[in-house]
């Protein structure tokens, strides 16, 4: 089984952390995973994207032309990257910041959810990445919340460990959306 996932948003939305987190969790579950970031030259506000591949086998290419899934956190990402999703794949779109150009009839499934609002609801707009993580884990059934929680401890720098409870809360809130 190989899952590939493309994540895009603007700097500050935690795109790279999200990719890191999912890949690390997969490693903790004994799978193979690759995480590959790409960002512009700008330090702030620019676009951030990354690709995660999770597989029971060795991961061949960490670069994916047409991902099976995409998490798109703002309008620019939606416009640019949604068409790349493989037919039969699915996308999670942050409808708080991106609603135009959502395809009506399409060969892919689009799950549009107000991720930023959900995050604000948990306590901080920046938790949008963890809400998305929860949703993705549950919907793809690729990772358990437990391994995500352990991975959090690894990918967050020590000084941010105090935010872990809030992060976990956001994860769960996301997951719950799919469970229901």
């Amino acid at each position, binding site marked *: 089984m190989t899952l590939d996932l493309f994540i895009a948003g603007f700097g500050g939305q935690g795109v790279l952390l999200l990719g890191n987190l999912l890949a690390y969790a997969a490693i903790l579950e004994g799978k193979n995973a*690759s995480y590959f970031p790409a960002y512009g030259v700008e330090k702030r506000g620019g676009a951030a994207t990354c690709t995660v591949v999770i597989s029971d086998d060795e991961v061949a*290419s960490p670069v994916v*032309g047409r991902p099976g899934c995409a998490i798109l956190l703002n309008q620019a990402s939606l416009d640019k990257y949604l068409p790349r999703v493989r037919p039969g794949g699915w996308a999670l779109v942050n409808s708080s910041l991106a609603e135009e150009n959502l395809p009506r009839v399409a060969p892919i499934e689009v799950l549009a959810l107000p991720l930023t609002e959900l995050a604000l609801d948990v306590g901080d707009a920046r938790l949008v990445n963890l809400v998305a993580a929860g949703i993705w884990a549950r919907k793809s059934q690729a990772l358990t919340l437990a391994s995500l929680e352990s991975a959090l401890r690894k990918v967050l720098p020590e000084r941010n460990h105090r935010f872990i409870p809030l992060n976990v809360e956001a994860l769960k809130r996301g997951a719950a959306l799919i469970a229901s």
Partner: protein
Amino acid sequence: MDQRLFVKGNEAVAMGALAAGCRYYFGYPITPQSDIPEFTARELPRLGGTFIQAESEIAAINMLLGASACGMRAMTSSSSPGISLKQEGLSYMAGSELPGLVVNICRSGPGLGGIDASQADYFQAVKGGGHGGYRLIVLAPHSVQEMYDLALLAFDLSDRYRIPAMLLGDSVIGQMKEALIPHPRAQVELPPKDWAVRGKQEGAPQRVVKSLYLGDGELEAHNWRLHERYALLEARETRWEGLHTDDAELLVTAFGITARIAKSAVRMAREAGFKVGLLRPVSLFPFPREAFRTVTLVTKKVLCCELNTGQMVEDVRLSVARDAEVYFYGRPPGAGSLPTPEEFAEQIARYCGGAA
């Protein structure tokens, strides 16, 4: 719990170097390799080693020359423009028969270019970007694990043959994360560094590390000695990976990140019924000429994929059986121009002819 770490390629190469006993790092920041100096700045002081952020890439390669002349395992790292600046120093190290590790995490060019992955420095690395017709040992990792493993290997080869070694990576392999098992250093027996300066002891003969040979015939003889060692390298130390080469009608070849992409493409093509194999050079110098010759005695079509406009393909053409056809597919590097597995798979289908 397994022993796997989840780290960046750049961190892995630094960990590999430290595991190889390297205790001297000299470098200058440049994206996309600055994780390497950042890692060594953090770790070397703890190990009693030395980290110097040099004032330039030129100073860094010359500090490496100095430390290596004393017999120490030492390294530097940079990315394309910075590596161009090291060419004179590399030529001096080669001429002075000094080992050492230089990591090039290539970015796109020419000039300032961009920070995206590139394989356009192949010629520079394997043919000699500096003057004087020397060669480097050039290894091309294609995974985070290989960033670590080949750093270890590079130090051993470099010490054994007294030829500077280069790891030719790219910004994907440097920036990506995947699992790493940090094996400890294998015990290998290496010749003593009885050429290293150390302050001549009482009665001991003077030691001089130099590349200047002015006597009649001396420099020629020196060069022949170096070239004999290059031949030895080719005979003994060529490394490559083969995949489905037995029944292949088309042989794909690629190194580094394009080899990873090609692996997916080959998988796709095999699933689609194409008889395609892969030959991935791990050592770019020495180039696995014999492997190419042998495989192409049977498989008559070769597709070389590169993230440039055609460099390794020349070595492939010079290696294959005389009646084999070599095709090239490449793109110059740049933002948004990384080829995809789908793209390579299309090329495979194009050349594989009568398929499924």
